[in-house]
Each structure stands twice: as C-alpha cells, then as structure tokens.
C-alpha cells in the first residue's frame, strides 16, 4: 500500500491539511487501511523534502495546508500509469503455508484446507453483507475496494478447491514427496513400509 501516492492523489483535489487527508483517505477506502495521524505527518514531511508538495499559508485556525508541486503532479501521473507488479505485493502466507504443509509429514492437509475454507467463506459472507447494506455514503470508491476484497476471497476459495483436488489426486497416485527422515526410528518405519 502506497501511502505517499495516496496522499498525492487526494491533494489533486486541492490543498488540504493533515487531519483532512486522513479523513479523506479513510472515506475513499472504507477505513480498510486505517492511517494514524503520525503516519500522515511523517509522510507529508518526506513529500515536502522530496519537492512533491509545498506548504501553503495556514488557514484561519492555524492549520498547515499542503499543495502539489509540478513534480508532485508528474510523480502521481507516473504512479497511475504504471501497473502494480507482483513484486510490490507482500508474500502470501497462505500459499506458503499450504505449499509447506503438502510436503510436511504427518499433517492432515485436507483439514487445513477445510479450516481455511470456512474462514474465507465467513469473510466472503461478511463482505457480501456489507455490500447489501444500502445507504452507503462512501460511494463508488469504497464500493470498488469492497468488490476487490470480495473477488480476492472468491479467488482464494477457488484456489483452495483446486488445492484439495490436487492433493486428492496426488494421494491416489501415491505421488506425495517422501518425508525427509531425520531420526533412525522414523527411517526404520519408512523402510518397513517400503518392504
């Protein structure tokens, strides 16, 4: 999540001060990624240092407002123009967990898949319920964020079905990776099974 770019995008509407930026950011994203005000101020300081924003005259209540510079406008344009690459995203813990589970001896991987399926399905239920709620004042921006979260949950469920199918197929054909054997007792039992 790029907070600096998010703030630059909000300043495209006109000069704003810190609390206003935080409120606008949360409004647009349905509070999905809450910001604390400290993050907002430290980001503003960095953006100013980099010449992307500049302070304006304080308003009547003495609040410091910031506006985009020409460099800020062009940085923002570049951000919107560039696709988000896979490397920008954090590693997916679930994919790693299941990949490792499938090669770890003594685990009921199907049970792990099912536990995750129920959790993800509950999340999809909640997101669907949020979408059903009428009178949503955050409008289009929040609705798009919500759809993103729903589609991600759906994709995860599809992938879990796929994992389960692949695991069952592998089990049926005996194509699971042999466990890495560390101690003699386990080694012996493996040898017994081989005989």
């Amino acid at each position, binding site marked *: 999540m790029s907070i600096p770019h998010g703030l630059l995008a909000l300043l495209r509407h006109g000069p704003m001060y810190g609390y206003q930026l935080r409120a606008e950011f949360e409004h647009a994203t349905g509070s999905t990624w809450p910001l604390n005000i400290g993050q907002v101020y430290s980001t503003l300081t960095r953006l100013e240092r980099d010449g992307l924003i500049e302070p304006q005259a304080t308003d009547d209540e003495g609040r410091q407002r910031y506006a985009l510079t020409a460099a800020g406008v062009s940085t923002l344009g570049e951000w919107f123009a560039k696709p988000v690459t896979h490397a920008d995203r954090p590693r997916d813990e679930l994919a790693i967990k299941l990949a490792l589970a499938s090669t770890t001896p003594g685990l009921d991987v199907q049970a792990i898949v099912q536990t995750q399926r129920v959790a993800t399905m509950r999340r999809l*239920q909640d997101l669907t319920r949020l979408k059903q709620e009428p009178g949503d004042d955050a409008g289009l921006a929040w609705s798009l964020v919500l759809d993103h979260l729903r589609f991600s949950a759906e994709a995860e469920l599809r992938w879990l079905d796929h994992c389960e199918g692949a695991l069952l197929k592998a089990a049926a054909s005996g194509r699971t990776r042999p466990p890495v054997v560390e101690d003699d007792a386990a080694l012996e039992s493996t040898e017994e099974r081989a005989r």
Partner: protein
Amino acid sequence: MNALDLLHVDRIHGHGNAAVHALRGLTIHVAAGELVAVMGPSGSGKSTLLNLAGGLDRATAGSVKVDGVELGDLSPKELARLRRHKVGYVFQDLNLIPSLTAAENVSLPLELDGVRRRPARASAEAALAEVGLAELADRLPADMSGGQQQRVAIARAVVGERSLILADEPTGALDSETGEQVMRLLRDRCAAGVATLLVTHDAAHAAWADRIVFLRDGAAVDDTGARPAAESLLTGA
C-alpha cells in the same frame, strides 16, 4: 418450528455390493426466515439432499420434516399435496412453460391445486410485483431477458403460502450481476419469513446465505455457523 428438518438421514441407492451411499447420517435444520447454502463437489449428495427435502425422493433411514410434518408418514397423495402447498422450487433451467404468460406460469401451481382462476391470478400478480415484474405479467417467457425469466421462476416458487424454497443452482445460467439480483430476491423472500435451502458451487452466491454447510461424500463436514459481528471485519482487513 423449523421449516425443514433432516435428522440422521441416509439415502442408499442399490443393494449389497452395488449399494451407493448418497447421504450418510446427514442432519440439517433450516429455520423460517433463514437462508442456508449447501456447497460441495459434484457427487457429494447435494441433489439427493434437495430431492429428499422436496419429497421427490424418500430417505432410506432417518427423518425428513417440512413444517414439522414427517414426510415418511405421508401417502403419495398427501406428499404431492404438501409439495404443492409448502415447497417452491427454483432450478437452473427455469422450466417456464413457453406458451403461457408470466402471470399464467406463476398461477399454474395454484390452479392445479384447485384455486379458482381469479384469486390465483391475483396471487400471481402479487408474487410478480414482489420480484419487481408487475408490469410484465402478460409477457411470454421468450419476450423476457434471462434475469426476468428467473424472477418469474422465483415468483412461481413463492406464490401462495410456501414456507420453503429449494433452489438448485438458481444463478447458474445468469451473468454475475443478474445472479446477484436473484440472490438479493431470495434474501428478501427470507426476510419475509420463507426458509430457503440453496445448492450452489458458486462461493459468491453462497456468501449471501446466513449459514453455509459443506457436504462431502454425503455427510456434512463443516459449516460456517452463525454470523460473526460485522465489526470484526474491518479491523481484521
């Protein structure tokens, strides 16, 4: 009282070595006003479950009750009557009769049940209005969109005093937005007190349910339970 109770239900097709256990000790309750979705791979027993719940098939063992009435105790004639009175069906292929208008399709089950033409028509118009199709009552199915036809099928399923809707992939043939409208309609029907048992492989549509039951090899392996509080959502995101 629940609209539907399945208690330790077995359904075995065939005998001896050729016996196939379509359902094994399945217990499911659907309360009035509740929308329950059933998910599972093909062959997990979803269709058998719907057929038993609708009295189209009989359990080998266990109890199936609709509105508290034990289906196993009914004669074929009584069973047919209960099916027409209490249970509405929505299928993927809509089964609308092409030569009848929307209103005629919806009033047909009532007329078959001996309701006179005029009150049947009035009930049909009310049901069509509930699904937002009041102005299309006299259209033929061929002159309606897929989504409108599915709404007619839902109106037909809920017309009269039905307490239970059985829906088998009701959104299967529809695009995602129309599918969503159909789910919204089923939800509205539940809010009006009807119980719905929905079978689907589509997680996005199952997510509209209050509860989701996962079926594997004829048995319920898990369910999502009661809804957690909505507030837990955003803090976890």
